[in-house]
Structure formats: structure tokens, C-alpha cells
């Protein structure tokens, strides 16, 4: 897509005035309020957006961005239905299920993670390296992900009843102490915290064993898509720029946010550095960050189909990405 690349380069090197000139339908310097709902508390998962805000990329695009962090009780999709945010980062299985089951008016306009970072984490001393290794073991899974795990097991010819699934409550201590054999979490995050306890962790991605879905899909309501299309394209453009800058040197940014974005989160900067490096290969795409290729959309739909979530191509709108 040479057009989008040229545009990005162009915007990347020009100032606000240039951006306004390139987008003549928007008055120069006028900034429009725009709110995004993130999927979790502040961590490296959202580094690209923090750069975009701190470095003024959203402002250059005419967006006055409000950033809302997530949490266990925050359902990002709810925030956009209630109109408290224009855009949310979601998991595609919940979003597509809501469209199918409840007729929720959602469109997926981009995907942050090309490969879902969720995987099975275990200790090197009791390694679980493939779905087959899970048979007869105890696996802690956040209740929301149970269906995904069952699907991954079935895809690999394993009867889910052969795995003892218990709830996962955020704390890796039971895994480190051997009360459970493995847990399901972001492989970009937990292996680090386990290593801090002097134990080595191993992991595999559900993605690599047939559950080929995105994560942190960029979701909007049909209403916002119709009314704020130019703002959404501007958000995608500024966010892509933020991620580009972030991965030019993944070690550069997290320490800078020790007293801002990461202040008081209870997590360590070293953890964020590990996270930021580990997530790079899961996000990269030849067409740029957030890209959604036809093959990948098909892979998402077919993986979800195996869980009984029957989505369709029209739930994804790739036309905004083309306008970046």
C-alpha cells in the first residue's frame, strides 16, 4: 500500500500546519474531543498511545484525546455503547459474540495484536510446551477465557475434560509454588514476574496451536463510524505513528514514564521493558500496525467458528486503514 506509506512518512515529518493542510476539511488548530477506552491498567501494552499523547501526535491530527484505563470490571465495549468513549480496545471473541448474540452495533476497524499474546505459561521445571502436555494437569484460566482454551484443546484433539481448569486470580504465586501446573495469561508479561522469583518460565501461544485470533481489536459503534470517520482515521494514523516510534527502540520509552503513565501502578519498569520487547513480534505487520489482511480476518473467523461464535467478514471494516 504505497499511498498509506507515503502519507505516513509525510505526516511523520511535518508539523501541525502540514497536517491541517493535508486534511483541508478540518480547521487548522481546532481540536476535537475524542475518548478511547483501553483494555487494562496502564502498562506497556498501551505504549504507542502514551507516546502519541506525550509527543502530540493526536494533537497534530486535531484530536484532543482522553485516555481511559481499563480494569477487571470495565467491559470496554460497554463504554462505547454507553457513549462514554468513541473507541475501545477489545478482545475479538467478546466483540463478535456480542454482535452475533445481542445485535450489538460494533465494527472492528483495526487490530493492535496480530497474534493474541495470550498463552499457557508454566515452569521450566515442569514444562508444558504444547496442548498435549496439559492432559491430566491443572491449568488456571481467567473465567472469560475458558471457552478459548476449550476451543484450543479441541482443535488439537484433546478432550477438555482431561484438563483440570480452575480460576486465575491475577497472582502467579500458586504457579510458582506448584499448586497449579500452568496458567493462562499474557506471555508478554507473566514470564518476567516469575523470573523475578528466581524461577524460569516457559510458554506457548494459543495462536500457535490453531486459535488464530487478534487481540486488542480497535472497535467502534456503527454510529461513531458514520459520524466521526475522519477522527477515527486520524486516531489510527497518530496511533500507528506512536507504535512506530515505540518500536524503533523498545527500551527507550518505559523508563521515561516512571513518574507519569507508570507512576503508582504497582508494577516495575523492568517488567514493562520485558513486556515492550516481547510484544513487538506479535504486533508487527508488513502493512503497518493495526493492519487487518484478508487472510488474517479469515483465520480469526474460522478460529472463532470452532468455538461456536459465527462471525462474518462485514464485522470488520478495513477501509479506514486504507485511508491512513
Amino acid at each position: 500500500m504505497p499511498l498509506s506509506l507515503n502519507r505516513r512518512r509525510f505526516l511523520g515529518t511535518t508539523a501541525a500546519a502540514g497536517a491541517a493542510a493535508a486534511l483541508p476539511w478540518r480547521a487548522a488548530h481546532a481540536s476535537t474531543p475524542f475518548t478511547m477506552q483501553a483494555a487494562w491498567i496502564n502498562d506497556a501494552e498501551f505504549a504507542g498511545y502514551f507516546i502519541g499523547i506525550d509527543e502530540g501526535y493526536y494533537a497534530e491530527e486535531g484530536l484532543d484525546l482522553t485516555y481511559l484505563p481499563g480494569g477487571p470490571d470495565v467491559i470496554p465495549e460497554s463504554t462505547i455503547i454507553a457513549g462514554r468513549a468513541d473507541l475501545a480496545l477489545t478482545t475479538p471473541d467478546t466483540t463478535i459474540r456480542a454482535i452475533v448474540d445481542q445485535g450489538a452495533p460494533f465494527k472492528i476497524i483495526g487490530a493492535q495484536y496480530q497474534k493474541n499474546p495470550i498463552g499457557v505459561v508454566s515452569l521450566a521445571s515442569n514444562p508444558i510446551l504444547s496442548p498435549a502436555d496439559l492432559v491430566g494437569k491443572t491449568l488456571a484460566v481467567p473465567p472469560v477465557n475458558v471457552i478459548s482454551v476449550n476451543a484450543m484443546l479441541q482443535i488439537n484433539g484433546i478432550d477438555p475434560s482431561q484438563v483440570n481448569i480452575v480460576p486465575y486470580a491475577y497472582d502467579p504465586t500458586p504457579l510458582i509454588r506448584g499448586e497449579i501446573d500452568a496458567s493462562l495469561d499474557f506471555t508478554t508479561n507473566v514470564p518476567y514476574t516469575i523470573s523475578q522469583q528466581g524461577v524460569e518460565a516457559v510458554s506457548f501461544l494459543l495462536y500457535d496451536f490453531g486459535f488464530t485470533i487478534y487481540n486488542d481489536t480497535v472497535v467502534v459503534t456503527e454510529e461513531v463510524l458514520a459520524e466521526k470517520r475522519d477522527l477515527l482515521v486520524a486516531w489510527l494514523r497518530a496511533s500507528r505513528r506512536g507504535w512506530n516510534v515505540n518500536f524503533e527502540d523498545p527500551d527507550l520509552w518505559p523508563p521515561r514514564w516512571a513518574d507519569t503513565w507508570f507512576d503508582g501502578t504497582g508494577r516495575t519498569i523492568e517488567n514493562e521493558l520485558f513486556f515492550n520487547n516481547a510484544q513487538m513480534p506479535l504486533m508487527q505487520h508488513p502493512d503497518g500496525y493495526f493492519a487487518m489482511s484478508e487472510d488474517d480476518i479469515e483465520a480469526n473467523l474460522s478460529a472463532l467458528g470452532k468455538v461456536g461464535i459465527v462471525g462474518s467478514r462485514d464485522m470488520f471494516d478495513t477501509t479506514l486503514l486504507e485511508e491512513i
Partner: protein
Amino acid sequence: MAAEPIAPLRGLRNLAILLAIWEVVGRLDLVAGGALPGITEILLRLWEDRGDYPRHVWATLAASGAGFVIGNFVAVAAGVLFALSPVALRLFRGVNIAVFALPPIAIAPILVLTLSGMAPRIVLAALGVYFVTMTATVIGLSQADSRATDLIRAYGGNRRDELRLVLFRGAMPSILAGLRVAAPNAVLGAILAEFGGGGRWGLGAYLLGSLGRGEPDRLWGIGLVATLIAGLSYGAFALLSRRVAGATRAVTLNSAIPDVSVQAGGPALRVALAGGTIALPFVLWWAFIRLTGVPDLIAKTPWGVVDYLFLAHTAETAQARLFAALAETLPITVLGMFAGLGFAFALAVSSRLAPRAIEAFMPVALITQTMPLVALTPLLVLILGRGPSLTLWVTISVTFFPAFVTLAQGLALVPRSAEDLPRAYGAGRWREIGMVTIPASLPYLFAATRLTVPRALLGVMIAEWLATGRGLGNLLNQSRGYLDYGMIWTVAAVSVLLSVVFYQAVVIVERRVLRRMGMATAE
């Protein structure tokens, strides 16, 4: 006896022994491979993390303070209304029981769905204080000195003058005692909402971020700070009531919904009031959703829940999932009620038989009331596994404390002379307790049961959510992830309804038994 130190010192000495044991056990990693840190390890970590705390503590104080003020304002206003108008009191009985019984973990997700920013924290804190202060106000106002009100009336004063000049002044000690119990509730409510609600600041948010590190000393530090805030807020109001009222009254958490029988009016009015009592909580629920203006897809009205559960095309699967969850949750809840009550009772009786041991246990018991259970989950699953024993222990820990306080108070009020009788006939201590102390404190046993019963469901749901992955608690958590809004509201509604039913069942049995025994309800 002469060698024994005097009472307060004895308590301190026993506490010191207990802390020393904790320290040794923690330092040597004797419990669950080190999941329980030593006291000094926790304190050192607290000191290391001291830079993190001020903003979190401040945010928690701001939310709980706002909730405390708003909740108490509504509670005192409602208390005055109820004291003036028996009809209003009767009409709001259903609402009052529902607020008393509602399990906060089922309500927190609902609040985050429908409100934004600080509002969920403030509302959860306010809900925690409303009931305590409201009952304290009603009781305080209804215990006024009739001679003083007669005087006002003799000088031509009306009801409003009575209220202003006599009733409010008389009710002050009671209201202040209510505030004292309410203050820690506000703190705990705010922390729970912070944990789930996605803000950056607040002890609950700090706890969430810290959980992933697998460092128990940090988690215990947060729990200790939460305990300290709750304890200080209790202490502050204790001091205030001593200053203002000149005396502190031993008021514990009151579980009796103030009630009156409306004498005037015929059976038609009584039926209308009964209908209104049941309908009002649902009307308020409906009004809340209409006022917040949240779309129907995510905010379900009572009718929306009925539709989801009985009429929609997914109704059958929804019912099946709900009933399957209830079948898992209800038996262990009933067991948990008996376990919690039994533990509280055993503790109360032992506090008569071995007061020193129990004195030392009290500070630890207090920490279990303010230490967030999510931080204790690894310790609990490592010691107890993920079976029924864990669920029972969590339920006991959630239920026993208020029940114990109530029972201990009841046991202490048994007349000495009645206890002396069996002793005079040579009965042992146990015999005496069985024949006199327990029957005489029956009203308090019922009051304790009223406190225990709704909280047992809360305890079981917490254990299901964090550790066992079964039943109603798991269903709630799972439906949150599946965006199954109908089920989120259904679980919240069913859990409140169940708690109310449990409560009301105890009230009915209590009335029958106490009437037969010629006793009055304990408040």
C-alpha cells in the same frame, strides 16, 4: 493471681506473643512455602514502597469520604422521614432490607457499567454506610424522652419543634455511634470499586497492579494500610462522639430493620403497603437506569431481566446456566451460614471461658475483616486447595466477625443471678452455659443470624470467583467476559433477592420463637 499483669497489659502481652509467632513462621517460610510473610518483612516493604502510597491513600480517602458524606446525608434524612412517618418506614422496608443484604461484589460491576469516573466508588461507599446510619437515626429518634416532648407540646410546639429541640439532640449519641460503624464500611466499599473500576489511583487500583508480581509482602502491606484507614476512621468517630455526646454507647452493627405495625387504616391499606414494600425496590432500580440514561443493551431494567430469563430466544440456556450455578452455590451457602455462625458462637463462648486468648485473637480477627480477600487467595489455595473447605473458610471469614460481636454482647448481658443458680447447685461452667447463658441470649443469637445469613452468600460468591470457579460467583465473572449483560443483571438481582429471602426467613422464625419464649427482639 497476684503475679498476673492487669487486664489491658495481659491483652497486649498475648498479642505480642501472637505477633512473635507470626514473625517466626513468616521469616522461616513455614506457611505455604513463604506465601505468608513475616511482620517485619511486611513493614520493611511498606517502608520501601512509601513513595507509592500517598496518592493511592488520598484517592481512597476522597472516594470513601464523599460516599460517607452522601450516604449519611441520605441515611439521616431517611431516618427522620421513617421516624416521623410509620407508613414511609413500612413502604421502604423492602428497600432497606435489600440495601442491607446486597452482596457488593455483585453490585460493583453493575455500577461500573452504568456510572463513570469516581461515581461507582462513591456509590459503593455510600451504600455501605446507609443502612447503619439509617437504623441508628430511627432508633435514636424513637428513644426520645417523652417528658421533654410533652413539655414542647404543652407550650404549643408542633412535631417539627419537637424534632428540632428534643429528638435530634436525644438521637445524637445513637447517630454518632452509627457513623462510627459506618466509616470503615465506606473505606472498604471504595477499595472494592477501585479494584474493578479502572481508575489509576486508590488502594484498590494499587492492589490490582501489584497482584501480578507474586510478592505477598506488598499485598499484605496494602491490606495493612487499608486496615489502618478503616481503624482510624472508626477511632475518629469514637473520639468525636465522646467529645460531642460526652459518652460512648456500645452500639454494634444493627441488623434489625426498624419496623412498625401500621394500626390505622383497614386491610386494604395494609395490602397496599405490603405490595408497595415489595414493588419499591424494583421501581427504584427502574428509575436508576432511566436516570443514568444508559442504553437498554447494557443496562437491564427489572422487566429486561424478566425478558432475558423467560421470554428471549436465549431464555432456556440462560435459565439452565443460572439453575446449574444455583445448584452449586446454594448448598454450600447454607453450610457456610452454619459454619460462620458456629465459629462466631464458639468464639463468643470461649471469650467467656478463656477471655485472654480471645483478646489476643481480636486484632488478627480485625485484619481479616479489612484485608482484601483477593490478596489472600494464593495463601488460601496453597493451604486449603480449591475445594469446599476453602469456600467454607472464606465464608466463615466474611461472616463471623459481626456475628461474634453481637453474640458476645448478648452473652455479657445475661443476668449474673441467673447464672449463679446452676452454679449454686454444683453445675460446671459448660452446664451453666448450656442451661442459662445460651437460652438467655437467644435474641442475640437471632440478631447474629440475621447478620450472618446475607453475608454467607457473599462469602461463597467470593470463593467461587477467586478460587473454585463454580456457581454464581463464577457465572457473574464469566458473563462479564462474555458481554452477557442480561446474565450480569440477573446474577446481581438473584443474589440480592436470595439474600433478602434468607434474611426474611430468619426474621419470621425469630418472631415465632421469641414470641413463644416471651422474649423481645434484640437490636
